[in-house]
């Protein structure tokens, strides 16, 4: 079966039944998840400038722009909203495009709920931070403590910086000129590719990525902005359903890479 990032690797010492924090590591900055979270926070946060500037250029006032970053807090949906309005679309069309593009956050919510197991009211806060970057940071780690550190570092860091730089962009707006001149749209392309890259291990992830990319490009001219991404998600879902059924039929090699751990489960050994 695919060794997806969601599967905990036993050698990293995940401990079943122990979900509480064990305190911070001796040096927080030595945690790989914290490092990834901080780099993502800076990169994504800076990109907030381009959202703020584009929003101002599209005719949104300062507080409308800030409401989108503070409350909606999902880059793709925010760009979709202002993009539809800038293109002459109605408020209801902008809302629809934004909501459709945000559907994937529901999937991220499911994954983060299963991975981080938030207790009580924490899930209401964690939900607001369940976006592309936090999900990618957390699910890229194998150890539950690292997953939590990654999620919260990226989540809080991005929330603070994204809003700060949205404000800078909204205020600087016209002074900055065209954000494209600074290559900020190219930065977004690079960021999404960098999030995808570590997952492209083996033939099946590559096949999924290529098929979904092609499906997206084919869909773009025929459906409203935002929808091609959902088409790709549906294709990936069907792909996953079928490929899992295949592996159920015993096509995967029956090799145990940890023979000395025989008898332990994927959830980790005691």
């Amino acid at each position: 079966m695919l060794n997806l990032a969601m599967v905990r690797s036993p050698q990293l010492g995940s401990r079943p039944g122990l979900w509480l924090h064990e305190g911070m590591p001796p040096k927080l900055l030595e945690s790989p998840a914290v490092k990834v979270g901080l780099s993502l926070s800076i990169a994504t946060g800076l990109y907030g400038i381009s959202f703020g500037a584009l929003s101002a250029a599209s005719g949104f006032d300062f507080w409308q722009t800030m409401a989108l970053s503070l409350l909606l807090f999902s880059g793709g949906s925010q760009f979709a909203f202002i993009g539809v309005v800038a293109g002459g679309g109605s408020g209801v069309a902008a809302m629809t495009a934004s909501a459709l593009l945000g559907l994937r956050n529901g999937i991220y919510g499911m994954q983060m709920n299963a991975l981080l197991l938030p207790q009580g009211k924490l899930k209401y806060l964690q939900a607001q931070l369940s976006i592309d970057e936090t999900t990618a940071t957390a699910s890229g780690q194998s150890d539950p403590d690292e997953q939590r550190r990654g999620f919260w570092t990226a989540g809080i860091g991005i929330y603070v910086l994204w809003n700060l730089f949205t404000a800078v962009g909204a205020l600087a707006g016209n002074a900055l000129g065209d954000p494209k001149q600074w290559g900020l749209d190219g930065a977004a392309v690079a960021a999404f590719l960098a999030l995808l890259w570590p997952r492209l291990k083996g033939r099946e992830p590559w096949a999924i990525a290529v098929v979904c990319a092609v499906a997206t490009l084919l869909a773009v001219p025929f459906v409203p902005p935002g929808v091609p991404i959902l088409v790709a998600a549906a294709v990936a879902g069907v792909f996953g359903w079928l490929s899992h059924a295949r592996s159920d039929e015993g096509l995967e090699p029956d090799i145990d890479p940890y023979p000395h751990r025989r008898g332990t489960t994927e959830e980790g050994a005691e």
Partner: protein
Amino acid sequence: MSLWPWILAACVLAYATKLAGYFVPRSLLKNPRTMHIAGTMTIGLLASLTVVNAFASGQSLAFDARIGALAAAAVALWLRAPFLVVVIVGAGAAAGLRLLGWG
């Protein structure tokens, strides 16, 4: 007409969507097939977001400086550059190509 109602409605929908994921029974996610599909969907969404940002311009496809960003980022990733460097390389490639008068 003011855009405020639609902005606030979009914000409510966005949060409700995120939160809805937390109320899907966890047992569903213990199912290996669900986990497998969650993994394939993540790859599909990221691949789709990459090409949408690289090639889509509204409802048409465009071939502009963003392709340079995509190619430069791929090279940087292949050379194992860290995330932030990849993003800067992408921005630099797009800005540089536009400076040269393309896209």
